[in-house]
């Protein structure tokens, strides 16, 4: 049935957005993860990407989570000579995670997630109405 296809497409959107939320929460959780040895690199922020692909079996364009790419921007450097991860000059590299950007990104993911849930609800109502013809 074609309406089930709509639900499958919306479900692919839910899956992709949930994967994106996972990447964002990973970034937030690791926003203070420094290196374990002196002078090493800390956690690098990750970015989720999306790609549209044609599902041959379904016959519809679904969305999938693409490669999770590292953010190439510079780390924040703080001077903390007593820190275990400090280099010879007493500088510690902190992850390039900006909590504000992550929260904005998270709200965006949430909004897209609700939009997909909305599609599923609307489609379910349409299927229920079709079945109501049988009851008349």
């Amino acid at each position, binding site marked *: 049935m074609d309406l089930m296809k*709509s639900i499958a497409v919306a479900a692919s959107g839910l899956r992709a957005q949930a994967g994106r939320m996972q990447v964002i929460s990973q970034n937030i959780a690791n926003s203070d993860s420094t290196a374990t040895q002196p002078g090493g690199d800390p956690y690098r922020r990750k970015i989720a990407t999306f790609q549209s692909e044609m599902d041959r079996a379904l016959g519809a364009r679904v969305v999938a989570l693409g490669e999770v790419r590292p953010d190439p921007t510079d780390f924040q450097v703080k001077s903390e000579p007593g820190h275990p991860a400090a280099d010879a000059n007493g500088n510690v590299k902190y992850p390039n995670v900006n909590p504000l950007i992550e929260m904005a990104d998270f709200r965006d993911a949430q909004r897209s997630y609700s939009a997909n849930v909305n599609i599923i609800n609307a489609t379910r109502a349409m299927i229920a109405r079709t079945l109501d013809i049988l009851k008349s």
Partner: protein
Amino acid sequence: MPISDIPIFSMLRTKLQWHQERQQLLAENVANAETPEFKPSDLAPPTFEAPARGVAPVTLLRTSPAHLAGADGGSRDFALRAAHDFEVVPTGNGVSLEDEMMKVAGNQMDFQAATALYTRGLGLIKTALGR
């Protein structure tokens, strides 16, 4: 005479199919709301002339029963129409979620109106049969 040959039912069936296909396109648009370079699409409203002319969609012909039925990627019973872009974000994505939600709600309401009419049509037949 099958029930689907009665004009009102065949008309309503076409309308229901149109809404069903549109719902799928709208679902695709919303699912790809974050995909770079994605352009939303929509179905052109059904016109009175199109079914009268008997326009058939172009598909690959299966000349032997041993042939596999190809996935009809993109071939539809109704004409596609590029949805006009309200805004295109820097990644090249033209989906506006609010706009899509509005279309989904409208689509759902029209679908329900069509099913209600279908039910009424069945009721008329029942009345004619005296039940």
